[in-house]
């Protein structure tokens, strides 16, 4: 059993030049169309080549103040309005500024055991499937899990 047998061939992408607001809307669209919560999107350039991945984690990491541990030590501090200002700063950046550029990919003929191993060892929830330079699908950990468990049960 290989990646091609379990991958989703319908996938959603964003461009490196998209704003974070556009990326958030793409997350919402993908979630509605796929009828499941989509937490990460592939980033592709004008030639549809994969150049990165953008996850909700990447966006949250950017919004999160670097010295957030100090907030817990400040009982006299009200974080409400400050957090709104921190959210506001995403307006100045694009997907290319915070996407993950070191993307682990698999091929259509990668075996599911190898895929499971990659996902477990490297804590990856989604793997783009690339054939040459073309993105042909994506394998989600839920897809892999459901496939394996279906056989088991």
């Amino acid at each position, binding site marked *: 059993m290989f990646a091609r047998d379990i991958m989703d061939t319908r996938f959603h992408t964003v461009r490196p*030049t998209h704003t974070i607001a556009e990326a958030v809307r793409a997350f919402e669209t993908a979630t509605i169309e796929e009828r499941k919560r989509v937490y990460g999107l592939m980033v592709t350039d004008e030639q549809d080549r994969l150049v990165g991945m953008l996850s909700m984690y990447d966006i949250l990491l950017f919004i999160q103040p*670097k010295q957030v541990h100090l907030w817990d030590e400040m009982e006299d501090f009200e974080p409400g309005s400050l957090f709104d200002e921190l959210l506001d700063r995403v307006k100045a950046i694009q997907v290319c500024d915070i996407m993950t550029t070191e993307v682990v990919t698999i091929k259509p003929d990668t075996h599911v055991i190898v895929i499971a191993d990659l996902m477990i060892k490297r804590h990856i929830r989604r793997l783009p499937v690339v054939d040459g330079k073309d993105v042909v699908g994506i394998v989600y950990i839920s897809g892999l899990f459901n496939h394996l468990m279906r056989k088991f049960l």
Partner: protein
Amino acid sequence: MLVKEVMRCQIIQLPTTAYLSKGINHLIKHKINALLVTDEVRNPVGVVSKTDLVGAFYGGLSIDSVLGDIMYGPPLTCYPDDELETSLDVMRTHGVHQLYVRGADPSSLDGMLSYTDVVVFLHRYCRSCPKSTSRKRGPSDLQEEGQHFTVKEVMTASVVSYREEDPLVEVIDGLMDHHVGAILIRDSQGLARGVISKTDLVAAYHHGMSLNVEARSIMNAPVISCDQRALLDEAIRLMLLKDVHRVFANSGDPSQITGVLSLSDAARIRSGSCRACVSSRIIPKG
């Protein structure tokens, strides 16, 4: 006080062959001022800072150049058991915002020391002190005591500013000429309208913008400022919580800027935020 008490262990590094675009991605994503650059066997060979990237933007270097083309090296280093005072002097003398910390293995680095780390340390120290402003009734009582530093006493009173319609190339000229981390942007009436930092310029470079676009197109607004009579401790807290490297000081009216206080200013006074520590100093002379 020793470096090992303040340093942090995480170092963001990339190889000399990584593209500038990837370096900028890492600087913005991790909110850092500089990247450690390594050779093919992961030995540290140089550093690329936001200043270097702004220089590359100014010089018209392609974003597809590699970090090895603009890095300076070798990285400036210190040891975990060095006196913090000595290391801060090295940072000031060389005009850098970070030092890398050497470990037992001479070919590797175990961590780094930045102005932010020093200020966070001082801030925590001051908050745990019985004289901390957070334990007092209100700022006015404290100022009457005259014990605590105010922003005005520590800030840099000269502020470099440009107009909203000035091109980025002139803003960069101002940054370079005055060796500052950010430029205040004023409107035609001279009122403070926004700020352009090195991070904004590096992002503009990454986004393929021209050096001729107007300052207003990338400035951050409104200006983050505080009253120059505010306590230093409050201004430091504002910078740390808002994730900014400087806060502008105003005369009471936010559009009338009178100075700027940076994290490096706050780190350089070394005695925390009140005079109680001046004689002994939290970070004593080495």
